[in-house]
């Protein structure tokens, strides 16, 4: 079971990273959901034993390596997302998908807030309101994304 979970996690993380880096026209890139964060959150809820805070931290570092103005910024924010997922996984995963996306909206808003705060403290401020859009688009794509991820691997619970 765990190898299959590991394989599914690895592949989904890879695909999410590619989707994050893929060049898009600027109006579309602004609305691009944080796929990697969503994937980490999904696995934190579904398989809190095999994918948790460590996975989140590693994925965050990956994001930092490609996109972060400061190393460690995304690592902290994604680890926080994973921590919330692991801690509340039983409460969240029993909810219907529509309610889950509301939770996702709150979590992504928190994620953006952490990034926004660290951006400000480290001297790389990005204060435009456009930065909050991905939280909403992320909540919108949660339902299809969770559906797609559920087909890759279903944990025995």
């Amino acid at each position: 079971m765990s190898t299959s979970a590991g394989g599914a996690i690895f592949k989904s993380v890879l695909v999410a990273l590619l989707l994050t880096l893929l060049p898009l026209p600027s109006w579309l890139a602004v609305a691009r959901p944080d796929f990697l964060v969503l994937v980490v959150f999904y696995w934190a809820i579904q398989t809190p034993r095999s994918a948790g805070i460590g996975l989140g931290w590693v994925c965050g570092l990956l994001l930092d390596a490609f996109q972060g103005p400061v190393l460690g910024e995304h690592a902290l924010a994604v680890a926080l997302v994973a921590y919330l997922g692991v801690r509340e996984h039983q409460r969240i995963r029993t909810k219907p998908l529509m309610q889950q996306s509301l939770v996702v909206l709150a979590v992504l808003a928190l994620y953006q807030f952490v990034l926004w705060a660290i951006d400000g403290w480290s001297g790389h401020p990005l204060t435009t309101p456009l930065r909050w859009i991905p939280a909403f688009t992320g909540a919108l794509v949660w339902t299809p994304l969770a559906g797609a991820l559920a087909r890759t691997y279903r944990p025995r619970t």
Partner: protein
Amino acid sequence: MAGFGTRSGSPYSRGGGSPGFRFTLYALASIVIMVLDQRMDVLERARYVLQTLTYPVEVAVNAPVAGWHWLQRSFASRATLEAENRSLRTRMRTLEVRTLRFDALARQNAALLGLKHAVPPAAERWLPADIVDIELGRLRQRVLIDRGTRNGVFRNQAVLDDYGVVGQTMHVGPWSADVLLITDPEHDLPVQIARTGFRTIAVGTGDPNALALPYLPANADVKVGDELVTSGLGGIFPAGYPVARITQIHRGAIQRMSQVIAQPFAHLQTDRAVMLLWFRPGSPAAPVPPNLRQLPTGTPGAQPLAPPPPPTPPLCTPPPTARPTAGAATSTASPGTPAAHPPLKPSPSPPRTP
């Protein structure tokens, strides 16, 4: 996969402790990394390695786009190619005719200034670089180029395109480098209004079509249509390169500063290739080398009295098209003195306009 977490035990009693405990550990690790990264020199090596490791992935992600462009090029029709060829030839002819008189003008300029030799242009070497199309941070104005330390690229190197200043390099790896565009909110560019010689700073807005000039007093002599050129201060960009054209000026009745917006000349959104620039260190138009920034220079008025350097050919030109009015008094020595060598401006940031 081993790094992804422990896999045994119930969710609440794992080897690594409770989720809260583990999160605290990871958070502390992140904060340590952030603090180290803020002190540039500590993680410089790690950044170099990261730039090396990420480059293959970035090239792979860019591959479909690059392939598409390649396909488009391969199947371009003969008519398109001919039209492009024709326009390029016209452009080349125009440029050639313009450069025909360049040497003569430079000599004439030197003669007018009382110098024996024409000053060589500031740019010494150029290197074209292709832009690797990839997302380097949402809403941040950055691009990746396919040249790195193997090509001699260094940190904070000036990057230009055919039309004007593009930005400067940030993290440089062996084969790639991040370029911070002049429109990034973090980028400040010391500029000069070409018509008046007035020096100020152009700040990025995050919008690829706009630079802001927030430090212009309300009574400054600025007009819509004024051209901005680099002022040569700040240690990165040589003087005299075109930057932007002023498009909007808003003067409020009660505001002490005017809100001025300029549109960059460089085609920041559509560029597929840029030029990296090496400047001649001795040239007066070249920016002040970084090691000179640390020199104690005392009062600005005392600077012209500094002993002249050993008999190098006298190098001096005034800032291009600057008239000896507003800004001229603030920094460089007067153009007539042959003893003046590259202006020893100590501060990396130019004066915030009197």
